[in-house]
Structure formats: C-alpha cells, structure tokens
C-alpha cells in the first residue's frame, strides 16, 4: 500500500465562546476526534453543512490552525510548529484555495506579479526565470499572456479562480486543500474550473482535500468522501458506494436533498429542524434530534465507528443494530 500523503489522527479543535455579553464561556467543539487519510494523487472530499467543521479540518491539515489534541502527519512526518522556517518550507508543498478568489487576490498587483510572488518569497531562480515560470503556469491554467498584466477586477470570476490556482500551484505543491473552490462560479464556468482542476491533478500528481457542500461536484472529483456533522465524521468511504447507497441517516438525507435537473418526483427525505448550534451540541449522537430512525440509546450514547463489509465506516446505532459485525476504528 502506498504511503498516505496526509493523515489526521484523532484531531479535535475547541474554541471558547461567550454566551451573551457577560455570559460564561462555553466550549465549542468545532472538530471532534476526526481521523482521515489521503493517498497521493487522490481526492478526498469533506462534505457537510455550515458549522460541521469541514473548513476547520482543512485548516488544521495545513497547520494553519493547531488541534487541541491529535496529530497531523504530512508524508509520514508531523508538521513543524506553525510560522517556523521549517514549517514555511513544508508549506510550499501544501497550498490552499478558497471560495472567493477576489478576497485572496491583492487588488493592486497584476496577475503575473501575484503568481510570481511565491517564487520571489522563496527566492527561486533568477528574475527572468521566475517571470517565465509564472507565465507558463498562467498558460497551464488557461490564462494567456494577455491577462498577465491585468488586475484582479479586470478578470471574470472564473478567470480569477484560475489565477488563484496558478498562484497555489507555482511552488509545485503535493497537497492542495480546496475550500468550496467552485461554489461561487456560474454553472458553465464551474465545469471549466472542475475540468482544469482534474487535469492539473493528473499532470502534477496532486492530492486534493476537497471541501464542498455540492455533492454533484464531489461525485465528479473525489474517490473518497467523509461526511461531517457537528464536528464529527458520521460516514467515511468510497465516493461511489457512499453516494449510491448512503448508510448513515444524515448522509441519506443529504444525498436525497441534491436537486437534480429534470427529476421531478422522487422521495426526498425532509429533515425536521435545523442543524443545532455547535455550542449546544446534543447529547449522545449529535444528529438524534433530527434523525428519522432515532433509537433510545442515540439520546445518551455517542455512536462509535463500525466498518461495513464494503470498507465504509459509519457511526450510527441504527446501522449497528442492522449490522451484526462490529469493529472499531477507521
């Protein structure tokens, strides 16, 4: 088996927040005992609703945020402490792109300058070599030299996301964390960027941690999916298995909620209620107040992972009751 490029072992991240102006501090478990692994050249999708902890997990994977417990292994080694020179060297191999490209681009710098900047910072090659490398990278993401001197506001949304990709890829990272990279783009442009991302992944043997709420896009790009709910993984496994035959009741609801063009009548699972506040996490299984198949033990006992015969991990008492075999761990 190939070595994993990224491993998260039981990471947890707790923030503390005040309830009200003078209220007492309460802990918010943004990420709770999350373990994941990503193989080189593969894509692992993190899906879940807002507040599920998927973005925090992505930031922890890059060392942008420290877990309160658990550890992160990149190519088998633990991340050096953040903002040290060793961490900076390591970080050239792992990059991140976000949903809103305009927010991460410098509005006053030309596209070429921004794409070249990482090379300048790490002092790689001569000035002309850097320029050529940046131009070649722009070309690789489908922005020709005419756009090199443009400012971000002169580009369309899709072109800006291409520029962000060029900047993230110029250091030839091995791992790219994408946080909702195509959510802000129109459908016709979204397809362009998804294709580009998949081409670049193949050419550069990139490993992607793909954070998204869009299951249609996730199905297109990923080999594995981890479904998160209120900071915990509830189901984890191969994309095609998980989407064609979701097992956890929350995954079932998510999959059934995907609006598909041209499909009008179908059985949609409409969940009751809203995702609860992470600061007020329900006891037992966090999903139990909305769960259509809730059992008495769900209210008090937090479910552990069991492994299904097809290799999937699911944390659900109802699934356990239907599945006699039970092993622990991912």
């Amino acid at each position, binding site marked *: 088996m190939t070595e994993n490029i990224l491993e998260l072992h039981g990471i947890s991240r707790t923030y503390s927040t005040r309830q009200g102006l003078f209220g007492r501090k309460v802990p918010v478990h943004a990420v709770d005992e999350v373990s994941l692994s990503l193989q080189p050249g593969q894509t692992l999708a993190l899906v879940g609703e807002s507040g599920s902890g998927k973005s925090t997990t992505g930031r922890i994977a890059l060392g942008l945020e420290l877990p309160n417990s658990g550890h992160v292994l990149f190519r088998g080694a633990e991340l050096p402490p953040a903002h040290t020179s060793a961490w900076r060297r390591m970080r050239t191999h792992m990059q991140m792109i976000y949903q809103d490209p305009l927010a991460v681009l410098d509005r006053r710098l030309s596209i070429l300058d921004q794409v070249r900047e990482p090379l300048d910072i790490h002092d790689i090659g001569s000035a002309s070599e850097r320029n050529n490398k940046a131009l070649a990278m722009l070309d690789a993401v489908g922005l020709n030299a005419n756009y090199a001197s443009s400012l971000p506001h002169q580009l*369309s949304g899709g072109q800006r996301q291409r520029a962000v990709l060029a900047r993230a890829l110029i250091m030839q990272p091995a791992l790219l964390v994408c946080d909702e990279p195509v959510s802000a783009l129109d*459908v*016709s442009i979204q397809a362009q960027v998804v*294709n580009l991302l998949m081409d670049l992944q193949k050419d550069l043997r990139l490993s992607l941690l793909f954070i998204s709420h869009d299951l249609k*896009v996730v199905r297109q790009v990923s080999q594995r999916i981890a479904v998160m709910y209120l900071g915990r993984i509830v189901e984890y496994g191969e994309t095609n298995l998980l989407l064609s035959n979701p097992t956890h009741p929350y995954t079932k609801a998510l999959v059934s909620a*995907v609006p598909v063009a041209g499909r*009008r009548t179908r059985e949609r699972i409409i*969940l009751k*209620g809203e995702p609860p506040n992470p600061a007020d996490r329900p006891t037992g299984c966090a999903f139990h107040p909305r769960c259509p198949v809730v059992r008495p033990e769900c209210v008090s006992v937090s479910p552990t992972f069991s492994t299904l015969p097809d290799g999937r991990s699911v944390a659900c008492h109802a699934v356990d009751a239907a599945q006699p075999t039970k092993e622990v761990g991912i």
Partner: protein
Amino acid sequence: MADLVGTAPASAFPATSSSGALLTIEGLTVDFSGVRVLRGIDLTLSRGESLGIVGESGSGKSVTWLATLGLLPRTANVSGSVQLDGQEMLGVAASRLDRIRGGRVAMIFQDPSSALNPVIRIGKQVGEVLARHQGVSGANIRAETKRLFDLVGLPDAARRFDAYPHELSGGQNQRVMIAMALAGKPDVLVADEPTTALDATIQAQILDLLTTIRRETGMALVLISHDLGVVSETCERIMVMYGGRVVEAAPSDSIFANPQHPYTQGLLAALPPFDGALHRLIPIEGQVPEPANMPPGCPFAPRCAQRMTVCKETIPPLTQTEAGHFSACIAGAVTEARQSLKVHKSVLA
C-alpha cells in the same frame, strides 16, 4: 407531431392558458447609465402558476423582477409595460405601487438576514405588513403572526414573536421572510435565490414549504435561481435567460427532456451528473458577455457551437417550436424546419 408542423413565430410569450393571465410583461427593457442590461422581456404569468427563471449572473433574471416591482434605483431607465390584472404598474405613483408591493406581489431575497431589520423583533416586522396591507390591528396582529409562523413551520411560534433576527438561523430567518411575504396575502410571490445561502437539507425544507404554500393558497410563484435542479423540482414552467433576454421557455418536463436552445443544452451538459457513469464535464467555452459589449446578433453566438453567419448579425426572436415550448435560436429553427419538412413528406407518403 401536429404541433411541430404548426410552428409560427410568437410576438409575445403566452401563458399556458391565456384566460388566467395575472401578470403580463411586454417589451421590458432596463438601461443603467446608457448601458442596456435588460433587452426586451415578454412574459405572462397565470394565477397559481409556478414559473422558474434560470440564468447565470448578469443574465437579467433578478433585474426583470426588480424593474417589475419598481425596486431599481432612480438611475435605472425602465421602459415597456407591466400589467397586473390589466392595470399598468410601470411608472405609477409610489403610493399606488406601495399597495401592490407586499400586498399583491411580494418578493423575498437570497440573504434573509440582510433583508430583516436587525434591531426590530421579528414579530413586529411581520406585524407591520399585516397592519399595512391587511388592516389587522391590536391583539389580532399577534394571533395572525403566530398563525403565519405556524404556516411557515417556524418552531415555537409564540415565543419567536419577540426574537431578533440574529437569534435565528439562516433557514429560520428565511421562514420569517416567507411569513412576511405571505402576510399581505399576495397573488404572486417572487423568490430570488431563496435557498442559495442555505444548507442542502434546509434548502430542501424551504423548497418543500414554498410548494406546499403555493398549493394551499393558490398564489403564483416565481422562483429565480441559477440552479437548474432547484427550479426543475419546484416549477411547472421554466424560462432560461441569457444576456438580458429570454432564450428558451417551456414546461419543465419539456425543457429537460428536449432542450432546444444551444445555451440550455450547454447548461445541462455542464452540470455534473448525479447518477450514471461519470464523464468529463462539457463546459460552455468563453465568458458571459458584458452588457456594455453585447454582441450585435444573438447574445450567445460567440460561445455557440451551432452558430451560423446570420447569428452574428440577427437577434433571433422567441419562436414556438412545439406546444408551449419557445426558443430564440436561428440555427435551431433551421434544423426544426428541416425536421418538420420531413414530417410533411412522411405524412404525404
């Protein structure tokens, strides 16, 4: 097949049944500082109908309805005609418009928390609409607000009356907006991307709610969305907009089974499939044209794989291709004509 033979250009885009026309828009155009962004919209909305408006950013799908309701800034130059039950709405006095807006036609937006006043309790905000449009007063306001909150599925309705918007989640605030829209007992609810900011499971709840309310109250629903999936499941009829024009309009089933305009075909092909085999996505190459640089002919011509020379010069009219199905495409009409010619021959033979 008889429908195919009987193709004829339609001057205005008719409703599914012309008798029930509630809202008629004719030749609606909007200019922002000399730049035309809406380039002539014709549509008819029937009572109780659900119409989906689909398009990418800049297609004019929101501007159409902001112009219809007189919600655009003064700098916008609006012309054309909008008639509600035969009465002109464009250019009428603000006092008259105020009775229509919120009363007969209500609109809700993508971001409910920015549409609600953050420092006024939600019960009071809904109560204002009740007092203004329904003449409800005193203790009845509270009772009626509670009934509306129950109707939109806001949990613990009685207690929510005194809550502020920040105390509610995004989905709950959208329910408050819907309650407020329903307070005026409108004939038409225009929902502009009502679920875009919401999570998937909450989106399903809100779409379900809108459909239920439409069935129960008989109001017409206009659902504006960039998501073909969302309108497909909620609407009976769909209009696709591009570059400030309607490029295709048809019953929902017909448009997905048999898209006629190359842009609609392109949009459907660009969507990642959710079942069946994976394939490389087929994007529409190029960019949406800027309003200031709109091509002289068909707005989609520069990106269209089926374009002909004539497409670059002539703006294709919206033409009926089969019963209730309209497409604004010259290339498509040519292929269609060839097909109907074949039909003629086969009928003769």
